[in-house]
């Protein structure tokens, strides 16, 4: 709940657009970004023009590598027909979240009051090389140690099962429940790559890609783009009567190499960014009923539920297991702890909506924007009218970077 006397918003979202996610073989990345950009400009209630945008903040992981290009701001200016300041951030899977973070910084600095934040990725252009490319987000020694990106999360999951599961089959069930739940959530999402239900048993029977991670524990290889119009809080009301305010924008980093971290069963950058964001927003985790969480692999959503403080360390799997048992069959399945409930990934998350790496962090805000405005259609989270806060959690690599943004409808 955003308090009237609580912290003031630092920025606002007044428009959002995205493409469908999937294997979009015939679209080039620029086309996807333009499509999402135009949709977001046109979505602004009171209308803005392309030339009202004062600066652009983009995020993409593989664009430079795939297309063998530098000077991305120039290419983007060419696409947009604008000569404004444009910056491009690469932060692996958090490139989108970092673009939003940078856009908010641009607003906070006072230099701009209307900016565009965009994320895009065209992973299918590297269809047979993507396994190698994803390792750019890992330490080179991990690549040389035979790891794949899935393998890195697999050693985290492996250690989690060892430390906390201790042979309890329900822990493995919880890892599958996350996938099953998120696919269930995506059934109402017209943009989602996979609008298809998977039972817990089906997840547990799917192929082992990097033991113990199975195919259906993984988010897919996707193409897509998403864009936002972000303004100063003061400017927002000129654009729409129902802006979604940003109360916290935080980023934290950590060692890329897993071996350099204290443990493998949580993500320090999440803990740091979450703690700072909650403090900035003046909120407790139990007060946020909706979360877009970086479920690139289901273990990451499990770890987030602990790193965010919703569940105690080592206990998220129990909470997830118990929550699922109690709420099977609903449109959205919340995680429950005492009186607190949170719906995680109402549109299917990375797992089912898709994970075009650089677009994800922006897509998360798109989802939250629509949810808080009550415009999420068949994906709309049912509430008794108090759905007034949400957060987005975006991870790069295995936690080398994390961005957290907290949103509200305003006091």
């Amino acid at each position: 709940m955003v308090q009237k006397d609580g912290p003031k918003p630092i920025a606002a979202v007044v428009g959002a657009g995205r493409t469908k996610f999937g294997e979009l073989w015939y679209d080039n990345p620029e086309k996807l970004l333009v499509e999402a950009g135009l949709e977001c400009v046109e979505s602004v209630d009171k209308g803005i023009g392309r030339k009202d945008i004062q600066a652009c903040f983009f995020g993409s992981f593989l664009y430079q590598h795939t297309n063998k290009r530098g000077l991305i701001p120039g290419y983007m200016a060419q696409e947009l027909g604008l000569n404004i300041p444009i910056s491009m951030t690469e932060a692996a899977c958090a490139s989108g979240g970092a673009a939003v973070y940078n856009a908010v910084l641009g607003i906070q600095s006072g230099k701009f009051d209307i900016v565009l934040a965009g994320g895009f990725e065209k992973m299918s252009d590297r269809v047979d090389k993507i396994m190698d490319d994803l390792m750019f987000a890992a330490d080179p020694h991990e690549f040389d140690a035979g790891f794949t990106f899935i393998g890195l999360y697999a050693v985290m999951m492996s250690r989690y099962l060892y430390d906390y599961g201790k042979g309890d089959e329900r822990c493995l069930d919880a890892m599958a429940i996350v996938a099953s739940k998120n696919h269930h959530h995506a059934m109402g999402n017209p943009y989602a790559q996979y609008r298809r239900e998977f039972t817990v048993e089906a997840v547990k029977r799917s192929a082992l890609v990097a033991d113990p991670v199975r195919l259906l524990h993984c988010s897919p290889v996707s193409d897509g783009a998403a864009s936002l119009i972000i303004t100063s809080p003061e400017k927002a009301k000129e654009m729409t009567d129902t802006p979604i305010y940003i109360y916290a924008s935080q980023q934290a980093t950590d060692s890329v190499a897993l071996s350099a971290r204290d443990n493998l069963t949580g993500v320090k950058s999440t803990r740091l960014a979450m703690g700072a964001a909650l403090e900035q927003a003046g909120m407790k985790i139990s007060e946020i009923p909706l979360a877009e969480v970086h479920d690139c692999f289901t273990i990451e959503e499990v770890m987030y539920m602990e790193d965010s403080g919703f569940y105690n360390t080592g206990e998220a799997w129990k909470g997830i297991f118990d929550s699922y048992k109690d709420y099977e069959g609903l449109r959205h399945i919340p995680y429950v702890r005492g009186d607190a409930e949170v719906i995680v990934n109402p549109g299917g998350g990375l797992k089912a909506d898709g994970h075009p790496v650089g677009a994800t962090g922006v897509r998360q805000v798109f989802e939250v924007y629509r949810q808080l405005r009550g415009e999420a259609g068949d994906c709309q989270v049912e509430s008794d009218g108090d759905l007034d806060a949400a957060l987005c959690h975006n991870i790069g690599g295995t936690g080398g970077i994390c961005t957290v943004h907290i949103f509200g409808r305003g006091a």
Partner: protein
Amino acid sequence: MSEPIARRKIIVDYRINATKCQDCGTMYFPPKSFCYNEGRASHMEDLDFFYKKGALYSGTVINTPSSKFKDVGAHISGIFEFPEHSLRIPGRITDYIPPEGSVDLSSLVGREVVPRFRRNYSGSEDGLVHYSSLNFSFGDEYYPHQEYVKIEPSEEVEKPGIVGYGVYLPKYRIKNEGGGVLGVTERTLPFADEDTTTFSVEAGKRALIHAALDSTYVKKCFVGTESPTYAVKPIMATVTQALELGEKFEDGYFSGGTDSQFACKAATDLYVDAAALVNYPAFGGEHVMVIGSDNSQASPGDPLDYTVGAGAAAFIFGRRDVIATLDHYLSYTSDTPDFYRREGEKYPRHGGRFTGTPAYYKHVLTAMKAMLKKSGLAPEDINYVILHSPNASFPQRAALQAGFTREQIAPGLTVAKIGNLYSGSCPAALGAVLDISEPGDKILMTAYGSGAGSDSYVFTVTDKIAEKRERSVPVQDQIESPHKEYVDYVFYRKMKDIS
């Protein structure tokens, strides 16, 4: 990867180099020049984990490998720790083929592992072959962990000879069904990440451990092989860097050497040169390492394809703490085209039956008989006789013809169980014989290299052999290891060709 990046990785990865803050004890891999806690004022200490043992902290079975590891196939990658030093590094389990289906990874947590020098990958755009020690095998498996204890050489100067040796045989084997092929019943083969270079490093590492010799005392390294990893780039440079015979980065240990080729006697030919060098004042050192190493090549389906093996043996020559003196030497050479491979050709060719009487037997028997005459020794004065062993039949026939008995031949007839190691053939057999020799024993070794020539040596075992014996990994133990794994011909052929 580019050549400069490869060079920087070599410095870190060959020996698992790390740094430790001397103030707060924090460890860093890869090495850092300052400590996070102590800042720029920190005092950092260089450490390496080449000889240490670690444990698996968390692992995964990579069923769908990256392009770099396609040759290796499914494997375990993981985070490994060296608990005594609070250091964790990423790594890969080698010499291990995961079973199909789910693996109980929890049961592997905490299991002891030993770093192994292996090839990470080849075939990248730079054309380089990349190696590291971020590979581990289970400590309770085929490859035992050995402490590397350095003992200062004694003051006493003796006749030059062998001061330490190490034989490395790979874990994987293929059987020749029935009675074997010319007496060869089973053979060693490389794992997917092994090659002549990795064999050389492993053998050299064991030789240093056996000799208990400070690696920086070795001032020259020769590697004899006919299956070099590169057409141009010496294996000895990799061995020198990995074993720290030479350069410690920005510190400067001086050491030289070269690779040599003379078919199967590329290494043994240099034993006398090594012994001579350690007596030569201008050389500036007292120890020379000579390694014979091969992933022995044969054209698929060729008769040799059923007798070739893989592995290496390293010998350190010096004149202090000698376990076997080099007493006599001679060499006999002629231009005999019995077996050869031109640049760019993948497999050697040979003259079939021409490789027998006019080639192998002529040179071996001539050299052996001349050696007996030169040394004044009769066959009965010799305890063990070792001959180059392209198979188990040729050396027995030649030795019997020269007046030796089957008892003198048998301990050096390792070929029957490991195959023909080409440049490593006589050296590995010499290692097997030294494993069981007693002080005073005399060993006659006659090598043969196609092209063609024979080197004949007489060694006399000294009292020192007993005190070093506990530091050897006996050849017979490797041959009979309960952990060796048999593979079929298809797997064998794949391993031979990618190594």
